[in-house]
């Protein structure tokens, strides 16, 4: 909507802000941008960065139900594996399982609001990070306390991601 003084009337209230094709690309692009946070020029000695790609994927899936197809977990997970250092296939499998699992949960829930979303996202984050640690690292590795911190940070980051995704979603308009 234009904010100029002459006309504050929106003459095309139902026009989509973005063409549908581009609006469909936006969720994919934001999830991939989240995965690409790992290219920040820091050589970390502890795995403390939350999995931003996963968090943004969960947020899109829970906040805007139709923004991502049910199969979007596999290609996005593959991209995340390529840039994250996990063995290839780990996120591809886990993110697909999470997308299917959220669908199964939705079938049983009559109604849900943000708190239930947060709970579902927390369960998904715990599942993905724990199983990801089990498949990527030998059992004797001493990363479990760091993993707990990473899980806590990721869960606490969900509301922020929700605000961000809601803002982007409002800008991009509805597209199916």
């Amino acid at each position: 909507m234009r904010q100029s003084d002459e006309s504050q009337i929106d003459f095309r209230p139902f026009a989509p802000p973005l063409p549908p094709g581009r609006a469909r690309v936006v969720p994919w692009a934001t999830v991939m941008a989240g995965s690409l946070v790992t290219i920040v020029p820091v050589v970390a000695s502890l795995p403390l960065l939350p999995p931003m790609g996963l968090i943004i994927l969960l947020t899109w899936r829970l906040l805007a139900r139709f923004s991502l197809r049910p199969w979007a977990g596999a290609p996005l997970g593959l991209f995340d594996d390529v840039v994250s250092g996990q063995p290839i296939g780990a996120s591809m499998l886990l993110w697909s399982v999470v997308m299917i699992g959220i669908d199964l949960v939705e079938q049983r829930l009559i109604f849900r609001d943000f708190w239930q979303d947060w709970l579902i996202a927390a369960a998904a984050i715990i599942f993905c990070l724990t199983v990801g640690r089990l498949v990527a690292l030998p059992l004797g590795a001493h990363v479990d306390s760091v993993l707990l911190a990473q899980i806590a940070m990721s869960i606490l980051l969900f509301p922020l991601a929700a605000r961000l995704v809601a803002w982007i979603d409002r800008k991009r308009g509805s597209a199916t």
Partner: protein
Amino acid sequence: MAARDRRTGFSRRRQYGAFLGYVVAVAGAVVGAVLLVISTLHPATFAPVRMSAASVTAPVSSGLDAVARWFGAIPTAIGSYFQVHGENAALRAELKRSRVALMQARTIVYDNHRLRQLLAVRDRDDTTVVVARLVSSTPSSGRRFALLNAGTLQRVGSGMPVRGPNGLVGRVTEVGPIAARVLLLTDPESVVPVRRIGDGMPAIASGRGDGRLDIRSAERTNVRFGPHDMFVTSGTGGLYPPGVPVARIDHAGIDQAIAIPFAAPDSLDFALVQRPYMPLPPPPPALRAAP
């Protein structure tokens, strides 16, 4: 928010479309599981995919790195301007103190050279292949890999040891055209043969995953590791050149102790890629089938 998607309605096309979406989703999970098994059993399979992605991300990372370093240098420059007088006095005092040690070291170097000539020992030259920077790492995964902004075009090869100014960093595992992946010392799957400075006691340094190393004695039992025992590479196995500093014991222990690596990768400036100390022998010729 209504939870269920009932938009398919009576449209057959939409119903089949939704069903197909779930079929593809399950297929994606199955493909992911297969890829995971392959990459667990044979991690090098997907190296080309990873390294072509790294060829795109490594220049971006090194650009960001340069910008961050430029801004990071500003406070240092201001601080050093004000500290320069005190630093000057401290350095002069230290120079005076270290002159004696320098004389001793010169004598030792001369003696060492002479004795080595007597023994006719030939040193292998550990030539540096390239000096590059570690530009990014895997901060969200438990594995400890870093990305080096040099690749096959700079003659970096797989298996080459990487050291920093303070000590050993790790070794190259995968190489792309302009980027290479380095397995850091602290990765849970990294193992380095080391020996203790002083008595030369052999040990194994393996990564813990939390930024520290486990040092285990290699040949004797009931070995005591005191705090501040220092370890250098032993050259066993032929990959790492001998004498590169690796780690210092943090907590004393018997047969096993926790050590802190000398080269903290998060404060790393440059990384030197070196040739493997003893290159791998060529593969044996294939046995001919008996007639």
